[in-house]
């Protein structure tokens, strides 16, 4: 069975923000090879550190982002190692570089080895500009890109998104740009140079806040302060939290919710029947939010997440459980669809449930293999 990228060789020299790129290509058939110095690139070193606090969560990130990739160790400071790497570059259709990793500062030399390849460079701020060398991490990039500003409570300061979202956002944009360039390269033979800035990727993912400033001179505030309806939030129930969205613009959801509460005869129905809930502007106020929370939770606390989810399904209310990570592993829909892959991991140990494909393809071309499951030798 032919796979989309099975004749594509990718040399992967990324170690942080660029790692998801090779992962996505590898799952669809590309032969992805990490080149690492003795002792490994920084992500491997952290994952194998004897110090527990350095190892977690690095080891899980390593397993996730490097699945399907082979790894070759080369002493790149020696002429032999460099020549071995150059030989691999000459065979590659895609070369992935990252700031702080091997050959990032030798772009022209890399392109000379592989003039018909796509060379994608991933860095915090891009190759050019006053901040091209500025140090950065996930936290500072989520801040510099504007996404940390948008989450959190007004009183408590900005809040970043969890895990390694700078890596994930940058990864999908960089993979897409690389694939676009490769599509052209394979048709025309012309190589391309792609310069991906993580800050720009994050700033590209800010919902409508750029246009909000451009058109209305309003700075979008964290938590949707001033723009989010009283109903669009998490509410407590008997065994956790549910997320509801029932603004007047989602009239079906609001009406179904209010009808259900009325049917049960619960006292909160009287409040929600009041005329003021038809006022979209008032619903944005702190007063409305406080009243709605108190009213709704007096109702939702009579039910479990599962019961509320079943009613949401039955009545077309836009409402679902706020899942913990353990809940995700136990999600009945995902179980029904046989979503998780069971794999043995080299570094994270035991047989684990690994996220399944981000997309299901009618041709059986997506395949998951653990990180480092092959060790091809350099040519």
């Amino acid at each position: 069975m032919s796979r989309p990228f099975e004749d594509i060789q990718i040399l992967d020299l990324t170690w942080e923000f660029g790692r998801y790129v090779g992962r996505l290509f590898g799952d669809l058939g590309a032969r992805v090879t990490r080149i690492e110095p003795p002792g490994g690139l920084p992500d491997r070193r952290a994952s194998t550190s004897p110090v527990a606090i350095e190892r977690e969560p690095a080891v899980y990130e390593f397993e996730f982002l490097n699945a399907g990739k082979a790894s070759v160790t080369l002493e790149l400071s020696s002429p032999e190692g460099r020549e071995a790497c150059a030989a691999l570059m000459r065979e590659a259709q895609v070369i992935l570089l990252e700031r702080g990793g091997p050959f990032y500062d030798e772009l022209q030399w890399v392109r000379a080895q592989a003039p018909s390849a796509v060379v994608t460079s991933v860095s915090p701020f891009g190759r050019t500009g006053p901040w091209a060398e500025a140090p950065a991490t996930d936290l500072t990039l989520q801040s510099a890109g504007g996404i940390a500003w948008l989450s959190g409570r007004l009183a408590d300061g900005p809040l970043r998104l969890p895990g390694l979202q700078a890596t994930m956002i940058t990864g999908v944009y960089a993979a897409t740009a690389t694939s676009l360039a490769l599509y052209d390269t394979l048709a025309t033979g012309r190589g391309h140079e792609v310069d991906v800035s993580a800050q720009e990727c994050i700033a590209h993912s800010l919902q409508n806040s750029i246009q909000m400033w451009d058109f209305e001179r309003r700075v979008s505030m964290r938590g949707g302060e001033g723009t989010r309806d009283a109903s669009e939030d998490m509410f407590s129930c008997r065994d956790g939290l549910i997320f509801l969205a029932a603004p007047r613009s989602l009239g079906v959801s609001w009406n179904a919710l209010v009808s259900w509460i009325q049917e049960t005869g619960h006292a909160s129905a009287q409040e929600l029947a009041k005329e003021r809930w038809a006022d979209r502007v008032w619903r944005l106020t702190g007063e409305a939010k406080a009243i709605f929370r108190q009213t709704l939770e007096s109702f939702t606390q009579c039910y479990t997440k599962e019961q509320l989810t079943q009613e949401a399904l039955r009545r077309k209310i836009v409402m679902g459980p706020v899942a913990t990570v353990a809940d995700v592993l136990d999600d009945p829909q995902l179980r029904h669809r046989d979503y998780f892959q069971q794999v043995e991991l080299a570094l994270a140990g035991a047989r684990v449930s690994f996220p399944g494909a981000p997309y299901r393809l009618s041709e059986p071309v997506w395949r998951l293999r653990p990180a480092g499951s092959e060790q091809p030798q350099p040519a």
Partner: protein
Amino acid sequence: MKPDFLKGVRFTDLTWAGAGPFGTKVFSDFGAEVLKIESATRLDSVRTAGPFKDGVVGLNRSGYFASRNTGKKSISLNLKSEEGKRIVRELVAQSDVVSNNFGPGAMDRFGFDYEALREIKPDIIYLSMPMYGQDGPRADLLGVGMTISAVTSIMWQTAYGTGDPVGPGTHYPDHAANPYHAAFAVLAALAHRRKTGRGMKIDLSQVESTINFVGPAVIEASSTGREPPQIGNRSRSHAPHNIFRARGDDRWVAIAITDNAQWRALATIIGRADLRDDTSLATAAGRLASLDRVEQAVAGWCATHAPEEIVTALRAHGIAVSEVAHSRALIEADPQLAHRGYWQHVQHPEIGAVLLNSPPYLIDGERVELEPPPLLGQHTREVLGGLLGLSGTQLDELNEQGVFS
């Protein structure tokens, strides 16, 4: 540059709202012809979502819509009419990709299921992206982007600390995971078709796609049997590592110390030689054990300094630091984005200049220049006349029958 990488690729694009159109925009920005099928009687909800130019509501005035639909062609078709559906099938017959993000079963009800369209165009690439997948006990759950954050644990994990979740402030999965996983899958399918001559169906469950964005946490929970900690802006491996209030009105800086030398430099900068020389704080483990003490010292110093001073002082010592930028700061005051020509204005026939983000990369050293988003139905006659060969009279008749409404 106006890339022609995808010249000759045509989409019949039925996506609407946020995630779907953001994904197909990738293709129109790179030279594909994306035929956006929409309808005045069942509007793309983003056309009616603000912000609007000058605050004036109008179907062609939404900045949000503009940012998701650059370079597409709009064909207004009422899909409740048999003629409307027939025209879609004729467009599909001449397309490479057909895309939708309707709920389960909606395409079948139109008669646009994969098997039916494959009969019309055997090598069609068919992208479907419902929220929770096409089948299963929760397939019909209704949701918005935040619902996807909720059921994938992103909402739970976006927390200041243990048991204090607040969730992302945006419909985050709509703006990265789902449009770009979808675009990557379609590009892979195009590559596959070029080699094999075969199309394929892409069934992207937005929940399944988004779980990959928290993949490491899922692996950890499965491996250890424990819930990963809710750490907010902190780090499990390094300290100090947080967002601190700086001098000024609602101004904040992110500081991330990642080794012990950086810590010593920071302690010196903030005038705390006592902490720098405290051996109990010499390692990350030691600082994590005394987190309150360490963070209070940094917070106290930040509160009396402007963000610019903090960034300049720390960056000079190799410390990762940034002001927490908001939209206005990114647009008007970010020297890096300005230097790289990140912002571009596109001229729109009804609302004039619209500020847009460029695709977030340079290709061969150049920016991708964006084309304006379409007016509702702007290209109906042009495309149906040109591609389907309908005469002016036929188009007038269809219009009178309400097919373009």
